[in-house]
């Protein structure tokens, strides 16, 4: 596979390390009253869709950026790639 790195262009997926669903960016607040339930869901339950999947890849043999890649799990077609840091900021993880 080729991942179209937002700053470096297409790079072989073998340079990257896969983590999983990009929902892992949405870490629950530890002080919420139902924090434990939220963390169990966050830690263990996955949509695992057959189709478009937003997922985290780390460019270990490259610029060490974490990326959010939108990839079809049926065809492996990649339709979007973003820097995970930008996504995290957009999802309100700025302190």
């Amino acid at each position, binding site marked *: *596979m080729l991942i179209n790195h937002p700053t470096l262009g297409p790079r072989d997926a073998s340079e990257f390390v896969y983590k999983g669903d990009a929902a892992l960016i949405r870490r629950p607040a530890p002080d919420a009253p139902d924090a*434990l339930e939220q963390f169990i869901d966050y830690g263990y339950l996955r949509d695992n869709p057959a189709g478009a999947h937003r997922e985290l890849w780390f460019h270990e043999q490259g610029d060490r950026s*974490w990326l959010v890649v939108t990839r079809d799990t049926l065809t492996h077609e990649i339709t979007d790639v973003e820097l995970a840091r930008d996504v995290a900021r957009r999802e309100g993880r700025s302190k």
Partner: protein
Amino acid sequence: MTQENRLQGGLIDRSRTISFRFDDKWMKGHPGDTLASALLANGVRLMGRSFKYHRPRGPLSAGSEEPNAIVELRDGARREPNTRATTAELFDGLTAQSQNRWPSLTFDALSINDRLSSFFAAGFYYKTFMWPAAFWEKLYEPMIRRAAGLGSLSLQADPDSYDKGYLHCDLLIIGAGPAGLAAALTAAESGLNVILADEDSRPGGRLNAETFAMGQHSGSDWAAETAERLSAMPNVRVMTRTTVLGAFDHGIYGALERVSDHLPVPPEGKPRQILWRIYSTRAILAAGATERPIVFENNDRPGIMMAGALRAYANRWAATPAQEIAVFTNNDDGHRTAQDLLAKGVTVTAVIDTRPDAPKGNGYEVIAGGTITNTSGRLGLSKIEVTDARGTRRSLNCGALGVTGGWNPNVSLTCHQRGRPTWNADIHAFVPGGTLPQGMTVVGAADGLFSTHAALTSGADVAASIVADLGRTVTRPDLPQAEDTPVALTPFWHVQGAKRAWVDQQNDVTAKDIKLAHQENFTSVEHLKRYTTLGMATDQGKTSNTAGMAIMAEVAGKSIPEVGTTMFRPPYTPTAIGAFAGRSRGADFRPTRKTPSHFWAEEQGAVFVEVGMWLRAQWFPRAGETHWRQSVDREVLQTRRSVGICDVTTLGKIDVQGADAAAFLNMIYCNAFAKLPVGRTRYGLMLREDGIAMDDGTAARLAEDHFVVTTTTANAVTVYRHMEFVRQCLCPDMDVQLISTTEAWAQFSVAGPNARKLLQKVVDPEVDLSNDGFPFMACGEITVCGSLRARLFRISFSGELAYEIAVPTRYGDAMIRRLMEAGREFDVVPYGTEALGVMRIEKGHAAGNELNGTTTALNLGMGKMVSDKKDSIGAVLSRREGLNTPDALRLVGLRPVDRANPVPAGAHLMTRGSPVDAAHDQGYVTSACYSPNLGHAIALAFLKSGDTRMGEVLRLVSPLTGVEHDVEVVSAHFVDPEGERLRA
């Protein structure tokens, strides 16, 4: 032997004659021959035996689709089993052995299977060999295994080397026949970066096998000139002997280049083959088509071949399997074959054409509406029985028979991403369909366009449109005039009433087997394949699948497209496993990481051990020491008595800087770091988000905004990755920067009562090492050996007064020598990972064996470290009830009740008197060693509610290693429990 069946002309180099051996016979051939063409020229038709019935077999084809003529090529360590004689290029001194026969090819004892064939019908083995049960492994299976298999491996290491490589192009063209060449010319002259790959040694595809004219030239001349022209262009890479074996995601193709297979041995330093990963923007599949047979009684005798193969042998290799040849056809190719053979002076006995309206023969007899209903000849064809349209039977003498049932486009690569071919009723064949691999277009015969003219124009047109798509201007080359004969074919799959008619010749699948599969409800095409093994042989069914589908369709009363096809899988042709491995084998399987003191340690005769990719000194044997324990005990005792030195460079080091560095560490460690003063170091425990211990180490605060974090050797990479995840994905706006500095610093642990005295001699005078000036857990940047910048940490894994000193890596070698020299007056010893392990067990420090990915802070006796005052990774999930039960495992120490006994790691613990089984398991030993300080074995273990069981005597059991005795639960701190030594 003379080349009795060598014809005139051909594309072989008659100026040179070369020798080769098949079984025990030496024969002659010419450069340009394949093993098969040379054998045929020498009058040899019998080249192999089939898999199940050991039927005598000769070549069916002239290419990589060959099911029958497979041999063991070369001898000794270079022996290659199952090599197709039809693609093996002849070289001087080539040797080949026939395979899957005993004692000899002409007399094969196991051909008895053929007589018993009715007992060996499809799937018979699922129905028997079940009684008595014990006999399966003792008798039946060994028997079957001995009979099974084809060629044999040499059992020696492959002496040749393999390369891997990576190529990039705008356009990959697969196949250098007329379509591929036309496409390449168009794309190349339009300025695209082109790779043209063909599995053959000679570009041209069928042009080399036919007598077609290309304008004024012969087809083969035009192909050769065109390929030369292309090779001369800087933007083109023509790769012959290169098979594109798979279409992978996003325009990536795998290709195998056979660099040296046509040579006796590869040149010095050169690979046998190269596996290329080709990154292409677009690809054109011009892989041509494969001829398919008609199935009839005893259609597998040596001499019975595809008609197109007969033309290829005659026209390209000037070879023929016999001087009298008949042809069996359902289309006009049969007649083209007859004409080509006649032109070469071969007698054509007859053309049996299944079509009642067959064309008239031109110098040969045509039996219109006829079929072949039997053949004879034990080791090679001698007669065929023909039944004509009126049902009259007659027998014809011939040494060979050309068979053609039409052509199947080579769609394999179009299906590697699960595209499914569709049925084309005009040419009665499957053509590319469904979703093709991204960027792929199909041209020429591979797309069902069978005339040379159509191949040229489709190749050129598709290339032109790709050029335009990629935003270049199209330059169209001049293409020659070429034949444009339409396909004239009436489907005819198999002759009715046959008793033994072969569909898959290598696996011995007959028409009857297919009918039996249907009778037993294995009607799905995948069931058919798996039950009968149709198409699962080394030829992957290239010549057999369609006929199989057709017969199944007939018995199931379906159409062929309704039956469908099985999935095509890479590789396109079987590929040497060595090529996929490339240079990553033996000692080069993975890189080796060496510590800064490695070369010095080698001088000391150190014994090394693998730790991840690192080689670390395990111990340093001295003269007279005969057992490793002697060396390790000495290193431990001397370190605790005076001073020892250990290279600890392999521990991961991560530089953490930024205004939020402390807040960041608070996040990744379960314990608090915010208030750690500058110039101090603290032990830290990292949890995974699931609350399980991930790694431990220290963080040294060199400045308000600068920490150095250490990780275990094994986890350096994963911890760094994890920290980047937290930084970029969870805390994107923390001001923190990370970078690994593991290799930037050579770090040595100097441990023992005399550590300070020793170091004092190395650090620059102004450095104050006194207990007040540099207390336990202090850290700082200092200078050594005359202004060399260094880092000093007063941390201790051994439990002794200890420092870790770090200098720039290039000085690591000099530093260890300097430290050893300075320590001579204290009898300093270097110690390795074994002694390190002994000392940490004596101190009860957890390490990899304890942080095994399933243990929590609580298990490790650090439950209180998990702060609930702050957020940190893993804190919340570490509070789950199952991880905090009263009987949770706790880290304890063990010592044998009888001090003479060992305490092996991996042993389990039982309550005394309880049954010894899993249900009563109390825990297990994680780390164990002999403590030279205590004079007996000690161990660390995880024990249920271990914290409340001090002093209890347990049963230690290791049935695997035959150990069982009593051990006593003690504190894990075996030596200096108060920690006075390390604060001294």
